[in-house]
């Protein structure tokens, strides 16, 4: 039976992998211009010039890769936070990544509108700084998850007030902000990818090495200390990892936090609470779901492109509720 369950888990993991690859291909094939798989290979290998190659390489593939990476980062960030806080509602929004990134992006839009290319980098810095501020505000002889969550909510509300104030005072400069606040991937390309790839991939790689630590930490502090874990140190490491991940994602995709909440729960429905399976499946599902939703965002109402965050929420929420009901029955 144990062999069976292990085998089942591996099969589900493989299905996740297939989903990931399929979403990726779909995202590359579909768009304003349909490019068939055959053409793709031709364009990549032989015809390395011309408009179609440009579209394929710098628009389609680049954006797909960014979408995939953003999804992975958010999902892993969310799963880490839920694990270490022992709170199923924990998501990257909670440690101030979204509000911090959003606030900095706003500031740049309002005060340095000519330097709009600084937005991703600014959002990244804003997100990380806010996380650290929240962490130290919540510190009192150690970090207690509840206090961290409350401090996060307070700081986020404060910064969100700033964002909304900007919208009131400078409505004309904040027009571009909608894409950012609901989360969108319009016009994302290789420079965005290279900006977040080092942080994103490195953090994912480190996290993948530590699923057992996440398992132990999620049993609660007393048990984890009893099992010989330096809880404060490991928790800090995980918070840093998850804020790097979320900050990377937020800086190019805006406030797409829902992935971070949804994907870990879907993984848990399939795999239980064992992070040795949950982590890899989050990476595959997170990447796959964002690539798939971004394809829909581009194609469903073409030529109008809707922000991917809207698609995520519209499709993701009902699907998630359906899974929750299934789980209760089963």
């Amino acid at each position, binding site marked *: 039976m144990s062999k069976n369950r292990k085998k089942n888990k591996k099969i589900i993991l493989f299905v996740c992998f297939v989903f990931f690859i399929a979403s990726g291909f779909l995202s590359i094939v579909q768009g304003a211009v349909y490019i068939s798989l055959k053409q793709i290979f031709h364009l990549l290998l032989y015809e390395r010039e011309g408009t179609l190659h440009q579209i394929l390489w710098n628009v389609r593939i680049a954006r797909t890769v960014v979408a995939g990476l953003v999804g992975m980062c958010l999902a892993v960030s969310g799963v880490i936070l839920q694990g270490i806080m022992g709170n199923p509602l924990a998501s990257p929004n909670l440690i101030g990544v979204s509000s911090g990134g959003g606030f900095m992006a706003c500031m740049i839009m309002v005060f340095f509108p000519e330097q709009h290319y600084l937005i991703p980098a600014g959002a990244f810095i804003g997100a990380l700084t806010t996380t650290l501020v929240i962490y130290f505000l919540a510190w009192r002889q150690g970090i207690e998850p509840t206090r961290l969550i409350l401090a996060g909510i307070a700081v986020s509300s404060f910064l969100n007030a700033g964002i909304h104030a900007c919208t009131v005072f400078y409505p004309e400069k904040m027009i571009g902000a909608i894409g950012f606040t609901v989360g969108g991937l319009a016009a994302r390309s290789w420079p965005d990818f290279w900006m977040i790839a080092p942080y994103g991939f490195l953090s994912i790689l480190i996290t993948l090495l530590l699923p057992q630590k996440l398992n132990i930490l999620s049993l609660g502090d007393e048990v984890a200390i009893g099992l*010989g874990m330096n809880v404060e140190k490991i928790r800090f490491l995980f918070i840093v990892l998850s804020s790097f991940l979320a900050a990377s994602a937020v800086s190019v995709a805006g406030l797409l936090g829902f992935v971070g909440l949804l994907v870990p729960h879907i993984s848990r429905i399939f795999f*239980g609470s064992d992070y040795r399976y949950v982590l890899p499946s989050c990476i595959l599902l997170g990447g796959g779901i964002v690539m798939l939703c971004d394809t829909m965002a581009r194609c469903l109402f073409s030529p109008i492109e809707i922000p991917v965050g809207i698609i995520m929420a519209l499709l993701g929420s009902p699907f998630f509720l359906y899974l929750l009901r299934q789980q209760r029955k089963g």
Partner: protein
Amino acid sequence: MLSCHHLSMNYGSKQVLDNLHLDISKGEIVSLVGSNGCGKSTLFKILGRYLFPTQGRVELEGKNIFRMKFKEVAKKIGLLPQVRREFMDISVETLVSYGRYPYLGFSQRLTKEDKGFIQWALDATDLYQKKDQLLSTLSGGERQRAWLAMALAQQTEILLLDEPTTFLDISYQLDFLDLIYKMNQERGLTVFMILHDINQAIQYSHRLLAMKEGTIYIDSDTKKIPMEKLLQDVFGISGTTFYHGDTQKPYWIPKNKI
């Protein structure tokens, strides 16, 4: 083996532990009783390194446990706290395997030796047949045994238990304490536990400690407990004490609150 010296703990201006001394010898079962709020849980949390005392030291074989590496302590002291996050969607075997955490190398993989200890712990707690079941499918008593199996897989010389029987019915309570006693007899496991039931504490341990106002008020061989002092001074109740014919140990039935 495990000892506390001049242990004090303040929460703000409230003194919870007051210059407490404690010494647990190898191979004995020591139970701690006391009324609510006397500081016994705080003491447990300090022994479990979850709280850092305001003053004083905790020593394991003469070494300060707060200066030792976390994993080194975890190879000597296993513990089962009351507060823990219960995940129902992992299998019994997975939970028990977490007990090997202090021994894992960089790759975090279980060795053959680790697997041997996991199997032994499952056997000892009579859970081998259920090892693939999810925790959610177990009864409360079995679940508690699964957590104990995790602590046993840790292969420590000392086991600390904080009210391990509180949420179990009487049959599971005795089942659990029998198991602890067996581990003590067969493997020389040193046990320190907080219990609520004074009769059970007396019956299953070699030594009984009673805490009052942040310090150890009674420290006695379980055959020679000053029962009146224990009931009146520590708990503020009166009761009738009898002596068991075989074990020579006292047991009591409650009369009234003083």
